[in-house]
Structure formats: C-alpha cells, structure tokens
C-alpha cells in the first residue's frame, strides 16, 4: 500500500459507514413510505422517525467526509466525476434538502394528517437520494466517466444498466438495514408487536436485496465486464463471499429474533459490497486515470492523512458516546418522564467590576488593533475586543437585570420608573 492510496482507503471506509449508517436512515424513510394508513402505520412511521432522530445528522456527515477527502486528495478525478454526473448528484442534493427540511418540519406538526404529509416528503426523498447516489457509483464503476469537464455523456453516464442496478441496490440495502436496526430498537423498548412487524420487513428486504445483488452481477457481466471479472474471479471475490455469508447469517439471526448481533452482520454485508467494488476496480479510478495519477502532491497526501488520523482521535470516541447513549436508550423520546434532578442554586448579584474591565478591554483593543500597525499588535487587539464582548455580556446581564422583580410596563413608562 502506497501513501497515495491511503486517502482513497479513508474515503472508502467513509463510504461504507455512510452506506451502513446513512443507509439505515434512508431505509427508515422507505418504510414510512410503505407504511400505509391507520394506527399501525402511524406507529411504524413514528418509530422510524424517533429511532433515527438523534443520529441522522452525524450519519449524514460521512457523505461530506467522502466528498472532501476525494476533492482534496484526487482533485482532477473529483472535478471530472462531478461535472459528468452532475444530474444525479444534483438530484441527490435536492433529495437531501427536502429530507432535512421534512425532518425539521415534523417537530412542528400537530395532527396525524400534517404528520403524514411531512412523512411522505421525507419518505420520497429518502428513496430518491440513495438511488441517485447509487447511479453515481454505477457511472464510475462501469467506466463511463473520463477525465474532462464534462468527461462523458450527461445522461448515459448514469442512465445505464449498471447505474440503475446499483441505484436499486442502494435503496434495497437501505431498506434492509433499516428494518434490521428498527426491529432491534423496538425490541429494546419492549415493543414486541412493532419488533415483529419490522422482523417480517427485515426478512423480506433481506431476500429482496440479495436478489437485486444477484441480478446486479448478471448485469455487470454484460455492462461492466472488467468489474465483473475482477469481482467474480479476482481480488473482489473474497469480499463478495463475505457479503453473501454475512447476509445469510443476518437472515438466520433475524429469523431467530437475535436482533442485536444481526445489526452487525447486516452492516458487514453492506460494507463488504463497497469493499468488493473497491478491490475489483483497483488500481483504476477513471478509465484514463489510475489512483496514482489522480493523486495530488505528496504534501497534500501527508496533510490529509495527518488531518484524518488526528480528527479520528476526537471523532471516534464521540461517535462511540453517541451510539452508546442511543443504543442504551438514553436519548429515547419519552414525553412523560422528567428525571432531571432539580438544581440547588444561589441568586445572581450585581457585578459592577465587570463594566470597568470591559471598558478597559475596549480601549486597549482599539489601541492595539486600530492605532498600532503590526500583526502581533492586531492579535492582542482582537483578544482585547473579544474580552470586551465577553465581560461586557457579564456586566450587562447581572442580577440587577435578570432578577428585577418589577416588570416594566410596555405602555406605561412612568409607572415603571416609579416602581423602580
């Protein structure tokens, strides 16, 4: 493994995590779409919403992670892909906006009718987005994007058998992952009936996704022969077998209602398909561009590797905390319980000293930033002005203003003055 391959490895890990975690969130929308009407349907839509509410934004960031890694480490490849596949990428972007908008709107709905409308927008965009992103992968995997602006047809680069297949596979995988995760979440909350409903959906979607994958291989044989060869006879084969085994194991686990381990095998099955694609396509990025040729300069590669490793040191413990709290039910939506302990406190007092400090900081800030003409003086000046803002806030917001028990009347100024 060379240095120039490390960023693409990071991007693929990010893509696999996005396919699993973001995919499950898309799948939650898929099941909302097929929920139907009536109370059981409302339960399914509610459960799907609440299960992903605390995590969907974090899961979405994996997509941004992949984009930024690719455009930093392989800029020419990124530019060619984005201009050629501009239509499906734009559709995915619109889907993401509608989805995020619908998520925000749902919190304001007051009636089941409003909720159903918002959920429909959410669900439709949850199908559109993974499909569109799947066609992008298909365009790259079947070698339809060349170097250029644009480097291929704007239509056939994504409206082709491989793209359509991978688009459908992305939706099927999302539905399957979501059903597996949601049965586990329902079981954890002690809601057996709901868990059973998602169990049936998980089994159906698992078989469906498997079928799409098999059909997909047949499509690749005719439409992307190089990829097919490497996937079935070359470097991609172990990943393909792993995906198959993990998928079958998941079905058995779900059948036996072992939902927690099923989460991990289902995730493995999907992640392995990403790995299979990468191994089969290596070392080619675009038909006329290898990964090595696409790579930005040495310093950029080092910088991105350092940034990702350092960022990972903060990111992974934080993600672990989020998922531990979520899976432990600490972030569940439970409107009736309020276990917040009351806090014993002391009242605020007026603090006149802060005013003098703030004024001093303001004068010093003006002196260093405006009168002096030197980078270091400017840095001190900025620090002084920020100190002015911070201490100014403390001076303005002391006990005198926040505790004043006499409300000043809006339409009667004199009375307000007299009371004071």
């Amino acid at each position, binding site marked *: 493994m060379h240095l120039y391959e490390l960023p693409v490895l990071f991007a693929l890990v990010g893509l696999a995590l996005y396919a699993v975690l973001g995919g499950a969130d898309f799948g939650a929308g898929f099941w909302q779409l097929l929920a139907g009407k009536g109370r059981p349907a409302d*339960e399914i839509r*509610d459960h799907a919403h609440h299960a992903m509410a*605390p995590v969907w*934004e974090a899961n979405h960031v994996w997509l*941004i*992670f992949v984009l*930024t890694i690719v*455009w930093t480490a392989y800029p*020419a490849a*990124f*530019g*060619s892909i*984005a*201009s050629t596949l*501009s*239509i499906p990428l*734009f559709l995915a972007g619109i889907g*993401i*906006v509608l*989805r995020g*908008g619908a998520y925000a*709107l749902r*919190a*304001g709905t007051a009636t089941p009718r409003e909720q159903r409308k918002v959920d429909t927008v959410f669900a439709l965009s949850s199908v559109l987005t993974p499909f569109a992103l799947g066609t992008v992968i298909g365009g790259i995997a079947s070698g339809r994007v060349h170097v*250029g*602006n*644009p*480097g291929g047809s*704007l239509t056939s680069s994504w409206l082709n058998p491989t793209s359509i297949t991978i688009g459908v596979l992305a939706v099927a995988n999302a539905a399957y992952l979501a059903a597996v995760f949601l049965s586990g979440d329902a079981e954890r909350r002690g809601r057996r009936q709901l868990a059973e409903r998602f169990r049936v959906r998980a089994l159906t979607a698992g078989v469906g996704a498997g079928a799409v994958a098999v059909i997909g291989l047949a499509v690749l044989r005719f439409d992307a022969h190089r990829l097919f060869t490497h996937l079935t006879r070359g470097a991609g084969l172990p990943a393909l077998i792993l995906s198959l085994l993990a998928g079958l194991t998941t079905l058995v686990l779900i059948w036996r209602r072992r939902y927690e381990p099923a989460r991990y095998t289902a995730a493995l099955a999907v992640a392995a398909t990403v790995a299979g694609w990468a191994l089969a396509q290596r070392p080619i990025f675009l038909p006329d561009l290898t990964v090595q040729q696409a790579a930005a*300069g040495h*310093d*950029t590669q080092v*910088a*991105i590797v350092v*940034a990702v490793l350092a*960022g990972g040191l903060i*990111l992974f413990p*934080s993600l672990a*905390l*989020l998922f531990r*709290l979520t899976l432990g039910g600490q*972030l*569940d939506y*439970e*409107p009736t319980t309020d*276990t*917040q*302990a*009351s806090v014993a*406190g002391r009242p*605020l007092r007026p603090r006149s000293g802060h005013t003098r400090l703030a004024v001093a900081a303001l004068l010093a800030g003006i002196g260093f*930033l*405006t009168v002096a003409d030197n980078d270091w003086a*400017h*840095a001190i000046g*900025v620090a002084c*002005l920020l100190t002015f803002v911070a201490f100014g806030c403390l001076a303005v917001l002391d006990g005198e203003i926040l505790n004043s028990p006499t409300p*000043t009347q809006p*339409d009667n100024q004199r009375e307000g003055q007299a009371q*004071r």
Partner: protein
Amino acid sequence: MTHILAIAGQLAPAEQKYLLQARQMQALSFAVHIPLVCFGIALPALLLYVEWLYLRTGEELYRTLARRWTRIMVTLFAAGVVTGTILSFEMGLLWPNFTGTFGGVFGLGFAIEGFSFFMEAIFIGIYAYGWNRLSPRAHFASGIPIAIAGFTGSLTVISVNGWMNHPTGFRLSDGRVVDVHPFRALFANSYLWHELIHMYLAAYMVTGFLLAGTYAVGRLRGRWGRYERTALAVPLAAAALASVAQIFVGDWNGREVAAVQPTKLAAVEGLGHTTTGAPVHVLGWYSDGRVEYGIPLPRLLSLLAFHSTNATVQGLDAVAPSDRPPVNVVRLAFQSMVGIGSLLALLSVIFLFVRIRRGRLPESTWFYRALVAAGPLSVVALIAGWVVTEVGRQPWVVYRVMRTSQAVTGASGIPVGYATLAGVYLALAVGVAWVLRRHQQAPLDDRASSRQTATEPH
C-alpha cells in the same frame, strides 16, 4: 497596467453560456446558508450561558428558556446541514475546474471542517435529546463541543475563502500547480484572521438581533414578563457588544483589503484613478471612472486605508478593464453593510447606555420597534458583506490566478438547476418559518408527535 496570465487548469476549461446564472446559483446557496451558520456559531454559546444561569441559580425559568432555544437550534441546524451539503456539491457541480485544479491546495480546509461538522452533529443529537435523561452537569457539558465546533468550523471554511482572496502555499509551473503546502496555504495565510473575526462577530449580531427581535415583537404586543425580558436581554447584550467591537474589526478588514487587494478597495470606493489623498464618497453612483451624486469626504480613504491623509490609493485604472469587478454592485453592497452596521452600533450604544446608567432595559416603544427591524437588517448587512468579498474578487475565483469563467462547469442545464434550487429553497424557507412559529406557540412538553407511541402497551 499589469496583464495577468491565468492558468487553464487541470481539466480543460469549458464554454459555458450560463456563467452568470452559475454565479447567481452559488450566491443564492450562500445567501441561504450563511445566516444559518450564524446561528450555528452564536446560538450554542447563548444557550450554554442560559443553561449555566440555570445551574447557578436553580431557577426553572432559565431551563425553560434553554429548552425553547434548543428547539430553534435543532430546526436551524437541520436546515444548515442540508444547505451546507448543497454548497459542497456545488464545488463540483458548478466549479469542477476550480476544485479539480486547486483541490489539493484548499481541500484540506474542508476536510478538517468535516470533523467540526461531525462534532456539531453528534453533540447536538446528545444535547437536544438528552434534556430529560442526562444529569444537569453532563447535559451542560454536552453543549460545550457544539460551541467549540461552531467556531472551528467557521475557521476552516474561512481559511479557504482567505486563500481564494490571497492565494499562497503553491507555485505555478507551466500551468501546473506544484510545490503545494496545504497547511501553510490555509492557516499561515495572513488573510484568514480578519475575515474570521469579522464573521464571528457578525454571527453574534445576526443571531442576537434576530432572536431579541422576536421578543421585541412580543413586547410590542404586551408580552413582557420576566421570561420575555430575560429572553430578550441575553441575545441583545451579545449583539450589542459585538456591534460595538465590529466597528473596529471592520476598519481593520478595510486596511487588510487595501494592502492585499487594491482593486477590490478601488471598487468598494468607486475610485477610478490612482489618487493621492483619496476621498470617500457616501452614497452616489459610479460611472465613467468617478462617483456621481455622492457626498465626498476629502482624504478620508487615504486616512482609513493607510493611516495618512496623503497616502496614494490605487485606482481601478491600474488593471485592465477585463480584470475589474462590477463596481456598483460592490459599492452598493459595501455602503449597505457599513450603513446598516453603523445604525446597529448606534442602537447598541443606546441600549448599553440605558443599561449601565439606569440599571434597566430601555422603555421607549421606539427602541423595540427599531430592535424588530434590526434582525432582518443585520442579515442584509451580512449578505452585503459577503457580496463585497466575493463579487469584489471578480473576475477571479482564485485572486489573480484563475478566472471564474475558467472554473465553471462545461455541463449544460444550469438554468434548470438554478430554478429548481430556488424553488426548493423557497419551500424550505416557508417550512422553517412555519415550524419556528409552531414551536413558539406549542407548549414545551410536545406530546402531539408521540400520541400513538404513548398508547401502545409497553
């Protein structure tokens, strides 16, 4: 007159009939996203302050206020996430040759920003959904990374903008980008800091005035209990102090622009010819190398830009006409920003004076009417400021290195994309306004969305 030979870029530059529409689409995307960013920067800090007041005093009022603001934060963050995603898509969809050529130089800024984005998303999830389940101290602690990430995120994004305005950290050799040092290009760039601080203070102004403005509306309608007064005082204090500091930071920005981007400064002031002892014109219209109908303030530009009334300021005629930005757009934007900023600073000084001298909030109805207007005006000033930065850099995407027309995509369909995005953003704006209003009216314990959930036997 200097003639600049720009590079062609990594991908072949393309013919694009709709360059102007591509730029407008990008501008629309920024104009929608940047106000949301302000809330991402400033609201977590204001929230933490109010929650700290709760921990300190134990008064339920502060907790109620913090929980209400949490809803606003969650709504606006969701809108910020998706509009920010559109921006990162547009790096490739609209400007593939820019990203394809210079991604190796500036891309790192966005890659690091991705981690700030992760931290924000993770801890907003914990903070927003942990109100009832985490201990008060743990909950407060979960908000701290959100405030930090809001700052570091804007730092890394603005480092890219600073680089576009003042490109360093690479060399051009035969039209190829070589000798790239990304960390140096982004973070050792003198152009980063003034832009960052200017934006950081602007975020507090926009968030503070908009938030205080909503409670000012309530006061004008007679809602003025202790809860409302606290909810108004906290954001107003932050906005007022930031407005005062912004005067001096803005002046600093002007001097940095004068030093590095003289053409932008000339466009800002409508200075057609290189002038010794150059004046500032208030209002007016630029035409044929001079400002007409403006109020001249002699020698002020030389004084402000170079701290000497006799300093020579470079005019627009120093560069070829094809290398000049559209002067009146930049000028109008600049005058709007400074004019609004001055009014906001005046309002702030009135507030601070009444507060310190009389020990209370202002009581004049006119003050609260002005405060209602201050919110939207601060957004106008914010956008106008970015128009100065971005349109003032034209025709360059990377200042004096790559033209915007070389960066643009060769793909067709820009008008369709532009219209679609405008429609979707309009729907998003209407939806967000609707949901914020619902949040304002709904009781805090929102049982409506869990009616069905609660009825199933556990």
